């Protein structure tokens, strides 16, 4: 017995460390295997991400090359038909190039100018293609611009091809570039590598391009436009406070007022905060008053919304009343949408019976009490002026004949001023037709001067009321 016990014990003693070390060995092997699996997974992911960036870079290079080739062709061809094709290709390739450029993992400031250049080349090609398709002749200026752009695209392409040499040999490690960019942002220090140096060079090169670069319909000049709807002398912050107090749709006596900030945007303005007396249960308001002319640009009233009591029509009536009390002439609501107990109603201006879409004011109404919650006159103040609506050369009945045979007109045509995407004339006077085509609703705009169809908009019903897109 005892021998047996001793035997068993010694066996047990011999086995116990075996269990332990066996367990440890297993654990080690297990964690090594786990680590290896993780390492492999990470490796695979890194390669996948690296490949994605490399693909974007290679595509960028070929896009820029194609831009240059297509620009060259558009200059060389005598056929408008081929020129339209080449210019459309420029448009597409420049757009793709811009998208690929912006998906590289480098800090944004390296790309801004190159990105803008590509957009402008694309815009100019698009507008010129349309011009050619409309059988309009290219001006001498257009030719020069195209030629200059071709030259600039070539320089850009050369700058990129210097980086390409490193890319094909695998010297560019995009993940490393991304990590360096992180480090640089954190430390605020500039450090270089093949990519950032290359792209910086390219971007600086673009900066030195002569300013002939076309400023397209979607480009800076829209941003830098002067507000047309503002005139008069500058007002002081104190005057701005008075304007704000008079404007808010409630009695602002007892409110404390502060000029929080001077906004240096498209319309320089004072930001006036109106604070309700403590425990009065009344809402605070923020009102932006333009420095020039003392006009209210934006107003926002913050409060919680209770049970809905009004419908959209009542809300529209309330908004209309507010606008006329605030001294805006005839304004017409275009559509209304409703979500979360709040109605949003854009109004457009009316001049000589025509709807002026660029003169837009958006009003938000609380559907619990009918109170005005916000007011946004930014577009109105940017574009409002006395326009002369020319006498229509084309009658409504004639314009109707020019519509698509697949459009069924649903309402009486109205005169409308709409924004269009051309450089010299940003607006066009049109007949506005509402109609349906195969179940979808549309607004179609026919120019009253030349019968051209300037724009087509589709009305899209959503759960948030009706939305014009």
């Amino acid at each position, binding site marked *: 017995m005892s021998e047996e016990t001793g035997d068993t014990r010694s066996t047990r003693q011999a086995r116990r460390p075996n269990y332990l070390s066996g367990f440890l060995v297993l654990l080690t092997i297990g964690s090594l295997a786990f680590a290896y699996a993780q390492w492999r997974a990470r490796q695979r992911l890194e390669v996948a991400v690296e490949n994605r960036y490399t693909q974007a870079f290679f595509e960028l290079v070929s896009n820029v090359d194609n831009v240059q080739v297509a620009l060259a062709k558009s200059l060389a061809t005598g056929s408008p038909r081929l020129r339209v094709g080449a210019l459309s290709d420029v448009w597409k390739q420049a*757009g793709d190039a*811009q*998208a690929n450029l*912006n*998906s590289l*993992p*480098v*800090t944004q*400031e390296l*790309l801004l100018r190159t*990105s*803008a250049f590509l*957009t402008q080349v694309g815009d100019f090609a698009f507008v010129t293609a349309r011009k050619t398709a409309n*059988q309009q002749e290219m001006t001498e200026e257009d030719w020069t611009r195209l030629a200059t752009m071709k030259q600039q695209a070539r320089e850009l392409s050369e700058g990129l091809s210097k980086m390409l040499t490193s890319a094909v040999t695998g010297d560019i490690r995009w993940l490393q570039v991304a990590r360096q960019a992180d480090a*640089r*942002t*954190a*430390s*605020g220090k500039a450090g270089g590598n093949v990519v950032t140096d290359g792209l910086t060079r390219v971007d600086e090169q673009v900066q030195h391009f002569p300013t002939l670069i076309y400023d*397209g319909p*979607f480009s*800076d000049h829209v941003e830098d436009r002067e507000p047309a709807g503002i005139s008069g002398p500058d007002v002081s912050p104190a005057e701005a406070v008075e304007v704000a107090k008079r404007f808010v749709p409630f009695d602002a006596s007892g409110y404390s007022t502060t000029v929080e*900030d001077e*906004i*240096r*945007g*498209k*319309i320089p303005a004072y930001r006036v905060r109106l604070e309700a007396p403590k425990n009065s249960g009344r809402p605070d308001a*923020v009102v*932006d008053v333009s420095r020039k002319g003392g006009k209210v640009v934006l107003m*926002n009233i913050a409060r919680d919304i209770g049970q809905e009591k009004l419908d959209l029509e009542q809300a529209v009536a309330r908004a209309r009343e507010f606008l006329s009390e605030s001294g805006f002439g005839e304004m017409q609501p275009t559509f209304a*949408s409703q*979500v979360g107990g709040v109605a949003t109603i854009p109004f457009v201006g009316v001049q000589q019976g025509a709807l002026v*879409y*660029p003169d837009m004011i*958006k009003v938000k109404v609380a559907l619990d009490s009918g109170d005005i919650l916000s007011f*946004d006159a*930014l577009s109105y103040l940017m574009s409002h002026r006395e326009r002369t609506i020319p006498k229509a050369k084309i009658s409504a009945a*004639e314009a109707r*004949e020019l519509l698509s*045979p*697949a459009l*069924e007109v649903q309402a009486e045509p109205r005169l409308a001023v709409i*924004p269009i995407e051309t450089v010299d004339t940003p607006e066009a006077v049109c007949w506005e037709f509402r109609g349906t*085509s*195969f*179940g979808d*609703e549309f607004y179609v705009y026919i120019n009253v001067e*030349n*019968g*051209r169809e300037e724009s*087509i*908009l*589709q009305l*899209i*019903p*959503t759960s*948030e009321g009706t*939305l014009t*897109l």
Partner: protein
Amino acid sequence: MDRIEVKANMSIIRRLRPLAVGCALATLVLLAAPQGVSAQTRPTLTWGWRGQSVRLVQWKLSEWGYLKGPVDGIYGAQTYRAIIEFQRRNGLVADGKVGPATWRALGFGYSVPNRAASWAPSRPVASWTSNLELLARVVAAEAQGEPYRGQVAVAAVLLNRVKNPRFPKTLSGVIFQPRALESVSNGLVWRRTPTATAYAAARDALNGYDPTYGCIFFWNPYKPVSSWIWTRRIVTQIGRHVFAR
């Protein structure tokens, strides 16, 4: 009337066009026979004819580039040349007379039956919903705890970038641009569920409300940022964010 929305919309229309044409042809085959085509009779126009009918033809021809001269309602030499050219290119008898066949080829005098009831309206609202969803997520991740106006402002900056030539042309391009937004780089944007306020702010921004007056940058001045960014023109500060152009 936002230009970008219009553009997106046009591309939807463009995408749907082959389908629509297919459907139109199918309907024509099915319905043209019983319905009949030309309800209206139009005069046959010849040299010297004047009036509204001539103007209609002239507008069409000049939009297509056949007619070089003015639209004056008089069938003269230029109109004649344009009509002959049009007829020749469209496989019609090039006699210069605008008869039923030419009227039709010009797109007048018939309509494609498309009674609304028989067609389910297409609902391309996915892009609106996805934009709202993406914007609300970014607002929640970048501007939680900011005043409402500050939340709208962050969303507005992203939408201003879409319109700006220096940035990608789509909202997803702007949001997922590498290194553009911290919350996208570190994944916070997917971990935080947007509040109702974030949705409201995103919706306001999509409706065109822009308290930044056209800014394309924003940052928190109390956090380390690239020194370059301070060279931008600062427009305003809302809450803890500075907004610049």
